[in-house]
């Protein structure tokens, strides 16, 4: 609640609730695309964000993958950064103080190679001032062991969720992988295990080849596809998941405009995360928020919450070729 103290009553209400966490607006930064927020402090007003989700944190520091780590593809990019990060201890001592000073909720993205690691990181984050929530990465496709298995098996996804939830003491968001046959099965399992919210989608596993050198474009051979190219897949998955769970769903995937964000909300997302677009326009999140105010005013919405899940799927005229039932 303390985050909302300066809400301007003359502006439309963009507040949304992610479980017990209240956000001033639905726009968050996606993990791994916004560093530890400070990188952007001279480029935008960080205090306007709905929430900051920081770069994924592991128990021990990780140096990441060899280069090349990124390659541009049609309307998107592939990355295999390899979860480079400073580790949970240095994150707490070096990064968290600055983040705690921001006037927005800070959600810490965590990742582990084993159940015990997820729990250990959660324990170390417990009680650290400024940590408003934990996002659990069970879906990163870049690390050979751990991550990918948790995100693709409903039972394992549920076990991580339950373990982190038991320890966390703050709302727990589970970030789902799109690299599964039925994302709703994982979503349900994670909800049943006690998740406070779901964020989706993480990157789609992809590959690019350099014909000239006959080599993979990434040193890791495969990587995660992000950017506008994945938006239709992300919208579909958010729509499907929102139908089957009752906890808040956070939409991620190729969002780079207010329109994109609102489409995800219509599909059932309570909030959104903006990822790859931060690389192209470091001010994009702020521009999306400004656009939401403009949209709410133009549409005379008392609250932006009124469009969540408001997708009109029942069209007035039925299929003209439908056979009448007898």
């Amino acid at each position, binding site marked *: 609640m303390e985050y909302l103290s300066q809400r301007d009553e003359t502006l439309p209400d963009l507040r949304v609730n992610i479980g017990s966490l209240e956000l001033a607006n639905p726009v968050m930064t996606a993990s791994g695309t916004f560093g530890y927020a400070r990188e952007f402090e001279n480029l935008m007003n960080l205090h306007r964000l709905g929430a900051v989700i920081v770069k994924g944190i592991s128990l021990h520091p990780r140096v990441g993958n060899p280069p090349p780590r990124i390659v541009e593809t049609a*309307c998107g990019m592939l990355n295999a950064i390899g979860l480079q990060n400073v580790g949970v201890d240095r994150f707490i001592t070096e990064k968290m103080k600055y983040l705690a000073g921001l006037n927005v909720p800070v959600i810490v993205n965590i990742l582990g190679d084993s159940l015990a690691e997820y729990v250990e990181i959660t324990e170390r984050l417990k009680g650290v001032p400024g940590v408003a929530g934990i996002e659990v990465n069970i879906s990163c496709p870049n690390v050979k062991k751990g991550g990918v298995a948790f995100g693709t098996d409903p039972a394992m996804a549920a076990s991580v969720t339950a373990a982190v939830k038991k320890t966390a003491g703050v709302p727990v968001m589970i970030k789902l992988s799109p690299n599964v046959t039925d994302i709703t099965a994982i979503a349900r399992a994670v909800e049943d295990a006690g998740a406070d919210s779901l964020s989706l989608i993480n990157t789609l596993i992809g590959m690019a080849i350099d014909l000239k050198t006959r080599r993979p474009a990434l040193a890791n051979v495969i990587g995660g596809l992000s950017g506008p190219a994945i938006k239709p897949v992300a919208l579909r998955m958010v729509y499907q998941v929102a139908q089957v769970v009752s906890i808040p769903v956070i939409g991620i995937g190729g969002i780079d405009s207010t329109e994109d964000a609102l489409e995800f909300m219509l599909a059932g997302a309570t909030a959104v995360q903006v990822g*790859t677009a931060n690389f192209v326009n470091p001010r994009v999140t702020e521009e999306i928020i400004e656009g939401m105010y403009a949209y709410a005013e133009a549409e005379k919405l008392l609250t932006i919450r009124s469009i969540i899940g408001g997708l009109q799927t029942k069209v007035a005229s039925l299929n003209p070729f439908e056979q009448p039932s007898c």
Partner: protein
Amino acid sequence: MSQYQEKATVVRVEQFSEKNFRLTLDCPLIAESAKPGQFVMIRTAVGKDPLLRRPFSIHQTSKAGRIQIYFKVVGRGTHILAHVKIGEELSVFGPLGKGFRLNALAPAVIVGGGLGIAPMLFLAKENSRLKKNCDNDLIILGAREKNEIAPLLDDFRQFGLKLLTATDDGSLGHHGFVTEVLQSVELPAGCIVYACGPEPMMAGVNEICRFQGIPCQVSVESVMACGMGACLGCSRPAKKGTYTHVCLNGPVYDAEELIWNI
């Protein structure tokens, strides 16, 4: 450290050879704060494809609030940039990265190879602005053939520094590499070598400098998505045993810090 996203108007387009171009852009905030060796990220498309900005070293700045980039058409992004019209607006983000560390007293030996010539004009300009005396300074420029250097010679000559050239085909100056020129001249005592060019060239310059005990700064290039430390995509191995990020820790390094990609 101020960085800006500016809508920069294209004020001049110069074509030097089939694929080499120079753009002059009106972006006063970036022009005023840029330092030699820093770079900018430029959006080449208004829409979503190509999605990412392209990094370019700053070729030079002017008091009139303009910057120049010098580039070669290598892919779709640079192809689009080569075809921009005067008056068009481009989104330019910068200045980014750490530039060259200039020294007002030490003689400068400036070595540019191929497109590595690009940042050296800005460096030569600031170097001569900073110093009372450039008598011992030296510029060595190399490329595949004459047309990649000749159109820039007037700009480089305005500082009055000794200037040597080398081309792979012998069409201008020494027939061979800039490293051979560097090896053949007697370098001024207490000088600093600044180099930018292909990796094998910089590795060669690094070796010559190491042998002679001369400090050497190099500017390297890398693919990158953001240019400002968020994506961690521009990693390259450093001797200290970890990755360094070209956008934040570079693009200018002490040559001894790096492991060469050759």
